[in-house]
């Protein structure tokens, strides 16, 4: 489905070059939140982004997710420079290349679980085909919620909602999956199962996954941990395999 995108160098999904982000530019309140971030993420990587509150994690994730633009530097998604592209182009790229999972699962309450999963495809090309529906059902099966397909999001638990959100993020087969504290709102057991799901889809679909988390144990399970402090990457290292 990403055949319209330009070929990216090797298996690189994401590259940040000297990305800075400042707010209130040109006013006395100007503050720089990210100070020259360099980062590369390859296909199939599962990376955890950790750091204290206010370190710039959410800002960085917004930039990577093309919800915001860097003040300077360049951000490549699938080899495509994005800083100067307009809202329409970035919106299109979001739909084609990126899957989002948020802390508060954010399903749309007016739609059923299955329709929520199908939503990115409906945004992409209107009425979903039989193949789309089969794919969505398959993903729901994958996250263990096949029997809840016709329920409303409010009728299932928080952990289940988060798994629906993951299925939704995967329905476009994105090369890059971004998760912003996906377990921040869940109990330990649900959080564990969500992370296991990330591992499984990472292995199965080969997409790059970047997870923002507060939980050092969950971060240690990922293949790579990136630590952000005060807008700088202070460490970026592969974790020893734990399983």
């Amino acid at each position, binding site marked *: 489905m990403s055949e319209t995108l330009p070929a990216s160098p090797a298996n690189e999904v994401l590259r940040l070059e000297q990305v800075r982000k400042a707010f209130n530019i040109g006013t006395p309140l100007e503050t720089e939140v990210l100070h020259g971030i360099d980062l590369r993420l390859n296909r199939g990587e599962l990376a955890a982004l950790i750091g204290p509150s206010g370190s710039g994690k959410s800002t960085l994730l917004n930039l990577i997710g093309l919800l915001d633009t860097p003040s300077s530097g360049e951000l490549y998604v699938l080899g495509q420079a994005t800083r100067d592209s307009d809202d329409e182009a970035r919106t299109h790229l979001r739909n084609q290349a990126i899957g989002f999972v948020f802390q508060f699962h954010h399903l749309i309450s007016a739609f059923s679980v299955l329709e929520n999963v199908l*939503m990115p495809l409906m945004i992409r090309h209107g009425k979903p085909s039989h193949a789309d529906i089969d794919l969505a059902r398959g993903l729901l099966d994958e996250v263990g919620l096949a029997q809840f397909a016709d329920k409303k999001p409010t009728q299932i638990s928080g952990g289940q909602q988060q798994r629906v959100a993951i299925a939704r993020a995967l329905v476009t087969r994105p090369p890059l999956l971004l998760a912003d504290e996906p377990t921040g709102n869940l109990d330990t057991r649900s959080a564990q199962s969500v992370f296991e799901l990330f591992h499984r889809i990472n292995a199965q679909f080969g997409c790059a996954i970047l997870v923002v988390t507060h939980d050092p144990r969950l971060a240690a399970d990922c293949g790579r941990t990136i630590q952000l402090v005060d807008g700088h990457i202070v460490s970026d290292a592969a974790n020893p395999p734990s399983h």
Partner: protein
Amino acid sequence: MRLADSLWTEWKIALRFLLDNRMQTLLIMFGIAVGSAVIVFITALITGLQANVVERTLGTQAHIRILPPDEVNRILPADDHSWPLVLESPRAQRLRSIINWQDVRDVLDQDAQILAVSPVISGPAIARRGVARASVALLGIDPPRYQRIIPLADDLIAGQFTVGAGHAVIGKELARDLGLGIGDKLRLDAGEGREAVVDIAGIFELGVRELDARYVYLDLKQAQTLLDLPGGVTVIDTTVAEIFEADQVAERLARLTGLRAESWMETNGQLLNALASQSITTEMIRVFVGISVAFGIASVLAVSVVQRTREIGILRAMGSPRGQILRVFLLQGGLLGLLGSACGGGVGWGLVQVFNLFGPRLFTIPVDPTLVPLAMLVATITGVLAAAMPARRAARYDPAVAIRYV
């Protein structure tokens, strides 16, 4: 993506958003329905009422009356070296015939804007029966022509519509005042010794008291003799195809014939004035009801946009373009307008039927079949327009901020 595919998604989201907020949707739909019911009912009522009033007014009079010009004093111009001081008393207007009225009639018969032409001679007389007397207006007519101006035969309540050979047709009030029935004799005195005795052939009721008490219809020739205008007519009545263009046609006819032409619009100035004020009032009611409906839609959608901030953010994050969000809310406005006005239009139509069945029954209101569809169209457009502001706001949300909105 093609717009049609995108619209499918937008339609689905818009519909679900409306269904999801069922109470809110029902309340605003009720508001729109009441508004459109009022608009449909009042429009039908006023249009029907006005048509009825005009029809009744024109049922007993010509659209344009051609009259001989008034007699005026000619004042001799003074010579260059003197100042004229004039003390003038207006001339008494005697009964006069239209000169060459046959030619005028023939010219009018050819006119495309004129439907019917009827020469009439009319003048005052005293009607007597026994000791009772009543002042009446004699009207000498050519029955087939006159019938096309005022269908008098339809208003007969007794006898038949025959005016030739010493027969007369009189109004109901006059018949009552003088105690006349069909076949009774009536003496008409037009002054200066000109008298005639006629048989009552028919009695009519036009529904206008003044006319029913005064009109005496005679044969043209007999009236000419009585009024001492042999071969003359005093007025030519006409009807036109476009009644509201009567004043323009009258102006043209006056220039064409050199005679005086009075349109019904001129003689019924007050009525027209009343109709115009009524139309303005109706228009104001419609506009203000429309505005309040529009504000209702706008405010409900504004609340809905705020309520759905996070969902809008997530749709944008999933790659929904700004235009799509915009259309989702425009569609909601349009849908509310369409469905609300469909219910309201139905109720308004029903109210008109109830009025026709159980109302005062003075007249029936016809409902123009395009009224309800037109009201729905206007309401739908109003809904879309009312949604414009909230929809623009939704489309402009910064997704990064909207997602974190609680």
